[in-house]
């Protein structure tokens, strides 16, 4: 039963990881830019939710849509004003640009919030549900529920909304999108905004589970990469699957060996996938 508890906790945390990784996957799948500032944006989302809680006493769950909207706007402006100019440039320039953005974000958060870990006080922080012996933390259920809702919204947007379909068209055939008269640069800006909104939402939810400090950023960037590569670069289903798998692997290694060993197993999983199925579990082609 203890093992079952661990498995469920791992899956629930994995759902939040999945939403974070979805953001990275959407950005790469459409714009073909690797967002090396992804973890920094995640931590920015966490601090956003923290500030909303500290000053407006908003639950991180309710802060989530606000933080997502704010990060959408920031992501849109960033792509429109800066990254669009780098889309056709060599990859090393894109890498340096995104790295610079990441470092600037971390520095700004250090200046704004300081290096100390911060958390939110919730009156339900230690509540749990008892499902026939299976103990599930309430915060984890809420966080996972928020992540699933975010992912479902994203799926519906790409499937049914006109703009969502137009973004898929850009990813499917860039020249074709220009030929039919889609405003590709604007759609790219919206795409980056959506990716940023996903990771911002994931950050708000993650604040339910862990404390936040600026140096978390690099860990989350690497974690998002592992998830997306394990699941398949550019595949949305892959990001979901990868997130859940990494959540499970972290929980199991923490339980059986030691919590500090969890990233070792995540990287182990990454190497295994790269060896056996380099395109990722649900990746299409390489």
């Amino acid at each position, binding site marked *: 039963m203890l093992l079952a508890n661990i498995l469920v906790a791992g899956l629930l945390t994995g759902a939040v990881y999945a939403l974070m990784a979805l953001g990275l996957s959407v950005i790469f799948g459409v714009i073909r830019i690797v967002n090396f500032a992804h973890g920094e944006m995640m931590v920015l989302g966490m601090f956003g939710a923290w500030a909303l809680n500290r000053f407006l006493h908003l639950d991180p769950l309710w802060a989530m849509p606000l933080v997502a909207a704010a990060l959408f706007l920031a992501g849109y402006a960033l792509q429109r004003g800066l990254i669009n100019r780098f889309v056709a440039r060599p990859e090393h320039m894109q890498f340096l640009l995104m790295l610079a953005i990441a470092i600037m974000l971390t520095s700004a958060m250090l200046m704004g919030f300081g290096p100390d870990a911060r958390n939110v006080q919730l009156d339900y922080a230690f509540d749990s549900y008892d499902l026939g012996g299976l103990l599930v933390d309430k915060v984890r259920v809420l966080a996972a529920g928020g992540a699933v809702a975010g992912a479902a919204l994203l799926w519906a947007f790409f499937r049914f909304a*006109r703009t969502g*379909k*137009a973004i*898929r*068209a850009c990813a*499917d*055939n860039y*020249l*074709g*999108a*220009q*030929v*039919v*008269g*889609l*405003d*590709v*640069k604007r759609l790219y800006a919206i795409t980056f905004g959506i990716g940023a909104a996903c990771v911002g939402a994931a950050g708000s939810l993650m604040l339910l589970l862990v404390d936040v400090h600026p140096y978390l950023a690099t860990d989350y960037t690497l974690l998002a990469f592992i998830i997306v590569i394990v699941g398949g670069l550019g595949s949305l289903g892959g990001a979901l699957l990868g997130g859940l798998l990494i959540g499970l692997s972290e929980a199991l290694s923490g339980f059986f060996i030691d919590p500090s060993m969890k990233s070792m197993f995540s990287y182990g999983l990454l190497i295994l996938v790269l060896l056996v199925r380099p395109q990722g579990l649900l990746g299409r082609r390489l």
Partner: protein
Amino acid sequence: MLSVRDLDLFYGDAQALDAVALEVGEGEIVAIIGANGAGKSSLIRTIAGIHRPARGSIRFAGREIAGEPSHRVCEMGLGQVAEGRQIFPTMTVLENLEMGAALKRARQGAKAQLERAFALFPRLAERRRQAAGTLSGGEQQMLAIARCLMGRPRLVMLDEPSLGLAPVIVEDVFAVIARLRREEGLTIVLVEQNVAISLALADRGYVLENGRIVMTGAGAALLADDRVRQAYVGL
């Protein structure tokens, strides 16, 4: 309706178009012929706003459009059926057509236009839920044409619509092009390597060589010209 003057285009240091000039009147079918690499696709893409010219003027329906981005050019009613069809392979036939009607000028009346597209190409209606990448080459070409029509263009530029298609299908495609002019009053610019069939259909033609217009005249006259026949028709 479309008037191009002194158009120069460079890819880095390489000149792809050199002082190209051409005129297309309303309701005309104008063919642009030339060998591989002569600059035909470069010309089409420059007019469509995908490439930026170094010099020259492109006027469409009384407005200067040189240097305008492609989505603005499309919005003015200058449509394109690109070389290699450029459909969206993982999206359904219906979604491909919807993308063609994403222009502001085409949103109203998109339903009626969809009916017309399906009437023109019944095969597409049968396969509307199928992923476009699974269609045959000829069907994909029909889809590319139908998708362009969804944007309700006044002038359509077709780039190598016969490329890679079986001769029977090529005839179908050209029959459709002729019908579009006859029934919808569309103005058409036709870029083709298949010189015989395109000059037979066109009112006028231009011969493009190494990025320059080297000859122009009525379609039938060009087709009868010895130099054209030797260089392009293989007679």
